[in-house]
């Protein structure tokens, strides 16, 4: 059960420690169902922290976004930890960053929040249109309770939860320094039904589907920026020399962009669904990511973001990997 008091007490204790720089959590957004990331730098700011079905942001993204300013001569770099609150999927992002040595284990303090599934804002806003004042939302068994200005409403989970949560196998953090409350049962079994459905179509049908989606891409790069696994300093997608992908937004460049983005996440994507959530033109990006995740899981028995000691998928091999596609 979610216990906000305990969460805030632990957050206060954590930010008061000498070896913690700041804590990243969630707070109520400015309007409606919005939730913002909250950077807690002192104990008095911890009272704003919340955890509700609206907290869909993956805060692991901010671990690698920290600006690394040059250290003045004679001074030591700030080696304090960053505390971060994670749901199950976010914790896999942290583990995958550790595997890739994107962050160091002794620079991060992980506070685990077992999660019963977050909401898909598009579905919620369809159900309750035009809500502008902040709303309280809670889990209650297999229902979600909305406390709106005009009364309390109960909605079954299946109608408003995000798609990734309905098939989630890791609702509990796979790695954490503190877990805030009791573990919860996984909602799904991680089957790739949607991917299989797409695979059964013929190439022309698949291309006409993706052509439609790719041609609506406006190349805002939100999917890359929000992704906790996309943290290269020099990203190949906007490198100018050599320029792999032109900046013009047409079907050729958009397809190349989407394929390159998806491929760079092959064997790394932890299926947090952030790319799909932030996409302004609703491209089903997770359908591509999940296809690659399915191949990696079924053919190589590999899952990213579970064991910090394992090796990254694309920089390891087994001599008996499958070869049936080779002439």
């Amino acid at each position, binding site marked *: 059960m979610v216990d906000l008091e305990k969460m805030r007490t632990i957050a206060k204790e954590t930010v008061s420690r000498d070896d913690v720089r700041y804590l990243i959590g969630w707070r109520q957004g400015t309007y409606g169902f919005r939730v913002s990331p909250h950077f807690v730098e002192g104990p008095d700011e911890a009272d704003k922290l919340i955890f509700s079905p609206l907290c869909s942001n993956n805060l692991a993204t901010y671990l690698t976004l920290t600006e690394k300013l040059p250290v003045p001569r004679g001074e030591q770099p700030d080696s304090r930890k960053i505390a971060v609150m994670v749901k199950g999927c976010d914790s896999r992002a942290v583990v995958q960053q550790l595997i890739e040595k994107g962050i160091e284990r002794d620079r991060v303090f992980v506070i685990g929040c077992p999660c019963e599934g977050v909401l898909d804002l598009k579905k919620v806003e369809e159900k309750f249109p035009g809500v502008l004042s902040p709303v309280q939302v809670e889990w209650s068994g297999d229902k979600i309770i909305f406390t709106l200005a005009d009364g309390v409403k109960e909605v079954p989970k299946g109608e408003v939860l995000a798609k990734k949560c309905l098939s989630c196998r890791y609702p509990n953090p796979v790695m954490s320094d503190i877990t805030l409350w009791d573990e919860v049962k996984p909602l799904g079994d991680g089957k790739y039904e949607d991917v299989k459905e*797409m*695979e059964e179509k013929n*190439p*022309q*049908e*698949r*291309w*006409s*589907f*993706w*052509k439609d989606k*790719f041609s609506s891409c406006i190349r805002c790069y939100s999917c890359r920026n929000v992704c906790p696994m996309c943290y290269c300093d020099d990203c*190949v997608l906007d490198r100018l020399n050599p320029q*792999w992908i*032109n900046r013009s937004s*047409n*079907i*050729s*460049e958009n*397809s*190349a962009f989407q*394929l*390159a983005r*998806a*491929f760079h996440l*092959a*064997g790394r994507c932890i299926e947090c669904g952030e790319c799909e959530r932030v996409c302004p033109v609703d491209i089903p990006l997770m359908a*591509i990511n999940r*296809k*690659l995740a399915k*191949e*990696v899981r079924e*053919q*190589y028995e590999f899952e990213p973001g579970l064991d910090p000691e394992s090796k990254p*998928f*694309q*920089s390891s*091999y087994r*001599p008996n*990997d*499958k*070869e049936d*596609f*080779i*002439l």
Partner: protein
Amino acid sequence: MSEQFQPNVVAFLCNWCSYAGADLAGTSRIKYPHNLNVIRVMCSGRVNPLFVINALQQGADGVLVSGCHPGDCHYMEGNFYARRRFSLMNELLEYVGVEPGRFNMSWVSASEGAKWKDVVAGVVEKAKEAGPFDQFRRNKINW
């Protein structure tokens, strides 16, 4: 049109095996289709999957990546990494609707001139069947 269509196939060959194999096919005077544009790389592990996407964008109708047989890599393990990568790239291209047979990978050693001929004939045949690639080819810019 289709009987006249000559596909444009880009082949990335590893310096130590496949390029030498193609050379052997040449010096042995083995005839094979002329639709191939060979790009020599030092190892199949050097071929970035973006090369494949970029080749398709810039006018290739088929792409072939060829390296040493597993275990024979000059750099010990380069082709093992390439195999993992291109297995996924192959699945990804098929998933978005590029015809199977556009992308090919093969192992050809320096002594397999005859096999090289068969591989090329197969790849060109598949590219001819699939027809001109027009899914996401880059348009020529007319200033």
